[in-house]
């Protein structure tokens, strides 16, 4: 069974997603949780195995028994094992978290369908991550996208439809660009397997000068930037996060854009290769650097002005994705390590924050920031969660967020990009401003908000795990060795 793990971690959620519509409502939730638990266990096992592998090797799984260029191959190395574990872990926690929340936010007959779509999205995101084939990546990107549109559109307010719709339009545009990129890539190399394409590049370095390859890379970059809501292509994101049902927001915000960022890393480093970034098309690198930096600054600035907690968090995500991309733009070991750490760090922090928003929606029926008033008294654990996660977002030392900034700053200094440092600091300051506003309301408000008591334990416990992760990841460097090894392997 161990050998079959790479396939199973994807297939099991898929299978469950197909069975859920046939199962009853109660059994459905159990199935979701079980499937995601199994997937998580599998991913952890894969992470352990991948980390134990010698440098430069990966776990390979040939789907259909056809080895790579002929068939589709799953490749698990340290980097994507890291992302996979994050994905399945968050998905599992959200699955635990969402039972009560969906019961309140989703119309009862649609709940099983919602679960099914949720599982499909989780499987889709994991599929994007695990695959070693550019076209297969696109297929799972489609699954993840379509499900995301609907998971958003199922929000209770009318605006949810609009939010889902605008994501649909922009997401499809992005997906189209990615497909164009794949097409160009295939045209120039004649193969779709990532490793094989890389081999072609190694064999024929003159391909780097080909306009086909350059166009392909540009398409990939723009398409994935759209999908990951990289400033200034983030237009779809705030509405989507704000209007979606709580469980969707938690999962989407914690994982979705990061997977696109991961895909960009894969494409840039594994497929095109570092040399292409350095010599082939350096302008893209500079453009990414500028975009990442503007995202890092502008995201929190926009967040400061928001009155809706989910919208505020969404804008903050706009900034946070900048951190994830920054490593790519710096492309040295420290910068990459910082970005890879951020996959986990931000997932934990943003997941926890959206859990707070979900708790607010559950208890208060609103996600207005003002509803946080008195949270510290009525729901102290949730308020603690908010505090810890917000500190992590700011990058307070001893929380996970600090490590990200530390490595990114090191990477920036190493790369000679001094200007990045003020950007990082400014972003921390802006983040501190809105985090402070939230905490102020939660702990130091005089009058009480609409929250009467804390959410049920079935919601509290999973979200606290995320909050604890913010602290644990900040003190005990669980992900660090893997992230560092992954960064070094990419370069």
């Amino acid at each position, binding site marked *: 069974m161990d050998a079959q793990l790479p396939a199973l971690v994807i297939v099991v959620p898929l299978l469950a997603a197909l069975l859920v519509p046939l199962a009853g409502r109660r059994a459905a939730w159990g199935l979701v949780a079980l499937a995601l638990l199994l997937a998580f266990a599998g991913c952890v096992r894969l992470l352990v195995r991948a980390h134990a592998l010698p440098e430069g090797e990966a776990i390979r799984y040939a789907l259909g028994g056809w080895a790579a260029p002929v068939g589709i191959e799953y490749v698990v190395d340290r980097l994507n094992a890291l992302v996979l574990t994050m994905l399945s872990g968050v998905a599992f926690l959200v699955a635990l978290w969402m039972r009560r929340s969906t019961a309140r936010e989703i119309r009862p007959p*649609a709940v099983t369908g919602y679960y099914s779509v949720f599982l499909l999205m989780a499987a889709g995101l994991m599929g994007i991550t695990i695959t070693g084939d550019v076209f297969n990546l696109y297929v799972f990107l489609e699954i993840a996208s379509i499900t995301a549109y609907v998971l958003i559109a199922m929000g209770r307010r009318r605006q949810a439809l609009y939010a889902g719709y605008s994501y649909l339009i922009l997401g499809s545009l992005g997906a189209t660009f990615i497909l164009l990129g794949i097409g160009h890539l295939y045209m120039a190399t004649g193969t779709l397997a990532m490793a094989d394409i890389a081999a072609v590049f190694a064999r024929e370095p003159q391909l780097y000068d080909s306009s086909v390859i350059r166009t392909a890379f540009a398409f990939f970059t723009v398409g994935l930037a759209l999908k990951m809501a990289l400033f200034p292509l983030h237009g779809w994101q705030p509405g989507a996060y704000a209007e979606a049902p709580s469980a969707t927001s938690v999962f989407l915000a914690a994982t979705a854009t990061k997977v696109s960022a991961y895909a960009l890393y894969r494409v840039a480093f594994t497929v095109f290769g570092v040399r292409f970034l350095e010599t082939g098309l350096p302008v893209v690198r500079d453009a990414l650097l500028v975009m990442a930096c503007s995202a890092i600054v502008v995201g929190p600035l926009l967040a400061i002005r928001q009155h809706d907690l989910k919208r505020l968090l969404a804008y903050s995500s706009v900034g946070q994705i900048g951190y994830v991309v920054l490593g790519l733009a710096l492309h040295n070991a420290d910068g990459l390590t910082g970005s890879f750490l951020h996959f986990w760090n931000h997932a934990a922090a943003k997941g926890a924050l959206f859990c707070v928003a979900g708790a607010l929606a559950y208890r208060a029926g609103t996600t207005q920031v003002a509803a946080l008033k008195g949270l510290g008294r009525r729901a102290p654990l949730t308020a603690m969660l908010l505090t810890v996660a917000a500190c992590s977002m700011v990058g307070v030392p001893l929380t996970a967020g600090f490590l990200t900034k530390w490595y990114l700053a090191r990477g920036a200094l190493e790369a000679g990009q001094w200007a990045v440092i003020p950007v990082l600091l400014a972003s921390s300051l802006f983040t501190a401003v809105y985090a402070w506003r939230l905490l102020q309301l939660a702990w130091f408000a005089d009058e009480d908000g609409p929250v009467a008591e804390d959410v049920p334990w079935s919601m509290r416990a999973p979200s606290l795990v995320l909050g604890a992760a913010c602290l644990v990841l900040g003190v005990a460097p669980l992900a660090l060795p893997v992230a560092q090894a992954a960064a070094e392997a990419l370069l």
Partner: protein
Amino acid sequence: MEDLILAILVALALAAVRLKDLLGAAAVLGAYSLLMALLWCRMNALDVGFTEAAVGAGVSTVLLLAAVNRVGRREQGPGVSPLLKPALWRLAEHRAALAERPDRPLLSARTMALLVVGLTAAALLYGARDMPRIGDPAAPANRAGSVAQHYLRHAPADTGAANVVTPVLGDYRGYDTMGETIVIFTAALCVVLVLRQAGRWRGPKEAP
């Protein structure tokens, strides 16, 4: 011959864009799909042509029309199905607001779209500079040792299927096809979820 088909395609596309009546545009797009499929077949991509015909000209036209019909009902007044209305309405309002306001933003939606299309076209043209010719045996996708050659040579022996496309889709890259099937499933499920849930729901009745 291809030039003629392409010219017709461009003309049809322009006609579809120019038509304000979405019903007509959908019909024109159906014809567009048929000719597109012809082009695919002309390039010997039979399965693609087949799919384009069956889906592009058939089902998707019908679905487009159904959607247009639903949305078009907004002119009718009360008792209207609410689906999709907010989205398109908002868009319409947005456009109306843009038209009325003298200080409209630098880039209207239309300019933006034009910009995107223009840039994409420019990129495609740039990319076409070094593209191999269609059917060029020396092209990376066709040359000896390429995956395509492998498929052509081994597919019948591997799977006993005469049409190479089928084993490529169903066997060598069967996993992709599984993914696509799941996409279809997802799409249907999603539409069911959204459309059967179209009525407004305010949550369970007990006080939160």
